[in-house]
């Protein structure tokens, strides 16, 4: 269809404000981050151009490499454990079992609680002196297993991850909205063909809810790469930086007034983010192709 002059004016006037905002609040700041990442700058004195030295410098740092690894593990757990759990719950609740509305509310409830409150709560659960977890272990006669969960090298990162994995409400609701849009006819036809619930889930529900699932996987991966609040509040990256993430690392570089390093870490985060998102899209393209 050929656009008329009038259409073109309409198109430009509707897209221009968005484009200007995108340029002002995204492209220019990202460009600024990129430029500053090439300088040694403490925010006080003149910035000195150092080329890619900041990138080499952070890459040599074990804390940065550990932060990157933690982020990737986090993203993997989010996409391979948290989202599947959410999908499973959505499939179960979509069957409308007794009390499903209550369960839906209960699972979604943590999403409306402040992350700070949750972190404080779990910090108390994990505390070695008065924490609930150690209390339960002692009740069960396994006091030998009690430990400082957030202060032990082997348990700190899993402890931070595990409590978060079960907050599935957000993704569950997205998938449920997709599932509720699937026509009942498919399920009735499958029933007539003798397909059981599991078969129906794999043959009907999941393929038809794949757009919602893809949204969840993408969001989960992106949010995992942006992890800050929960780690900052629970462990501040400790013990010995074992729970550090890339955003926390760059925040600490800002605290150290090393803006060049902080911005280099930001650029790395953007690159990792792009790679992860493109990877996820490619995987889903294959899934889509299988049904076309």
């Amino acid at each position, binding site marked *: 269809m050929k656009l008329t002059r009038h259409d073109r004016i309409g198109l430009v006037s509707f897209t221009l404000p968005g484009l200007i905002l995108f340029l002002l609040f995204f492209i220019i700041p990202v460009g600024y981050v990129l430029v500053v990442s090439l300088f040694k700058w403490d*925010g006080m004195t003149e910035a000195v151009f150092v080329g890619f030295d900041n990138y080499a410098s952070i890459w040599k740092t074990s804390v940065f490499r550990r932060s990157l690894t933690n982020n990737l593990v986090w993203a993997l757990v989010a996409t391979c454990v948290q989202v599947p759990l959410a999908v499973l719950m959505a499939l179960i609740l979509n069957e409308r079992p007794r009390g499903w509305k209550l369960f839906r509310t209960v699972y979604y409830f943590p999403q409306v609680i402040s992350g700070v409150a949750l972190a404080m709560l779990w910090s108390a659960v994990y505390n*070695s*002196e008065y924490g609930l977890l150690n209390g339960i272990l002692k009740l069960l006669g396994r006091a030998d297993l009690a430990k400082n969960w957030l*202060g032990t090298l082997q348990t*700190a990162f899993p402890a931070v991850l595990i409590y978060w994995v079960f907050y599935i409400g957000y993704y569950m609701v997205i998938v449920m909205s997709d599932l509720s849009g699937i026509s009942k006819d498919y399920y009735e036809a499958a029933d007539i063909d003798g397909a059981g619930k599991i078969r129906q889930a794999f043959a009907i529900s999941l393929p038809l809810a794949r757009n919602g699932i893809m949204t969840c996987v993408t969001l989960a991966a992106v949010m995992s790469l942006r992890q800050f609040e929960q780690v900052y509040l629970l462990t501040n990256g400790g013990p010995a930086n074992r729970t550090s993430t890339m955003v926390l690392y760059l925040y600490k570089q*800002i605290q*150290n007034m090393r*803006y060049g390093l902080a911005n280099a870490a930001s650029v790395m985060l953007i690159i990792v983010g792009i790679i992860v998102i493109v990877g996820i899209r490619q995987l889903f393209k294959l899934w889509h192709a299988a049904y076309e």
Partner: protein
Amino acid sequence: MKKLLSLILAAILLFSLSASAFAQSSAEFNPKEEITLNFPSIWVGTDSKAPVFAEMVAAFNEAYKGKVNIVIEEQTDYQAYRDKIRTMITTGNLPDLFSVDVFKLNDLVASGKLMDFAPYLTDSEWAKTFSDGSLQEATVENQLVAIPFESAGFGLYYNTELLEKAGYTEFPKTYDEMFVMAEKLKEQDIVAFPLMTGENAWTSMLWYSNILLAVGGPEVYNRGLDDPAFVTAAEVLKKMFDYTSSDAVGAGAAVVNGHFLNFEAAVYTNGPWFLPRFAKEGVNDLGNKVKFALPPEYTGGMGTFGGMAGTVQAYLCAAKQDNPEKEQAIVEFFKFITQPEWLYKLAATAGSMFSIKLEANPDDIQVKQDLASAMAAAPYLVKHFNDQMPTAVANGFPAALDELVLGEVDAQGFVQLLKDNLD
């Protein structure tokens, strides 16, 4: 009746005297138009200085009505406050007034955005009110870039009842003796030292500072991180973790404070601002069971018994001004809030100590009087580790301490981790 009348008369006299003092200083300053000064302040909300500080600002605004108006921007979180000031410095938008605690004055001076108070203080009556050496501490490259305000000494405080359970009526004089005591406390299931590695590892850092002075003497920082004293002090600090609570790794200030206030730990260190909390928040009448102790001596160390970590804890700073009247207004405000009458009031309510000379107050709690006496008699007071080190090294202390305590590195490795944070 007569008594009441004389009291009222005395109060009126006192009020008129102080009002005239303020009026006099206010009368001497007549800007062309009212000057507004923005002051993002941490001394608000639930901060112990908040009530008196608010009174000070209100009194100043009243005394300088139509001339100067101080506008307080409330910041209730210390870390958020530091982040804000850091960002404002970086973006070149320094507030008119602000306070500084952990920032290095050297870093701030490099920005070239700080007001120089030297013209207002050199050879002035105001300068004479400051304690010895405090103005020099605020002088960088011949510029007096800050007004020293709050000061602190970092002695030790012990729970007499818990120590008695281990058979001690006095605090040991050496670290060796202190560890013998710690062992006896441990036998009684009492935590000897509440320590922390979370947040900025504040109380552990204070212990390290005092151990470092005991091992390496007052010149230890001048010799740099290569000095073996840093390693030896780390070994001592690590040993202390054998006698701490199980949640020490990753613990923040609230945890450490909680252990001492709840009668769970025997020996504590912090600044004077914490001392009123022993009575206010401690259980089992803790306020009456805490005694002050000097940091122990290290056998064979270069330190002198009685020397301790002590520092200007908070400075008052201002942004460089183009308008001389605004500059004068800043000086008027800082002069006003550094008047002893206000500081006595602050000291009484918040437990603070100041870089301004004040008479000893017999109404102060005993531990604070003991600390003040110890600071006055100290052969040296040396800034603590965080104040001495570049920002990145100070910020790297908690993670390095984690590594040390969890056995990932030895004391030598701990110091190396600190060095790795140097540029």
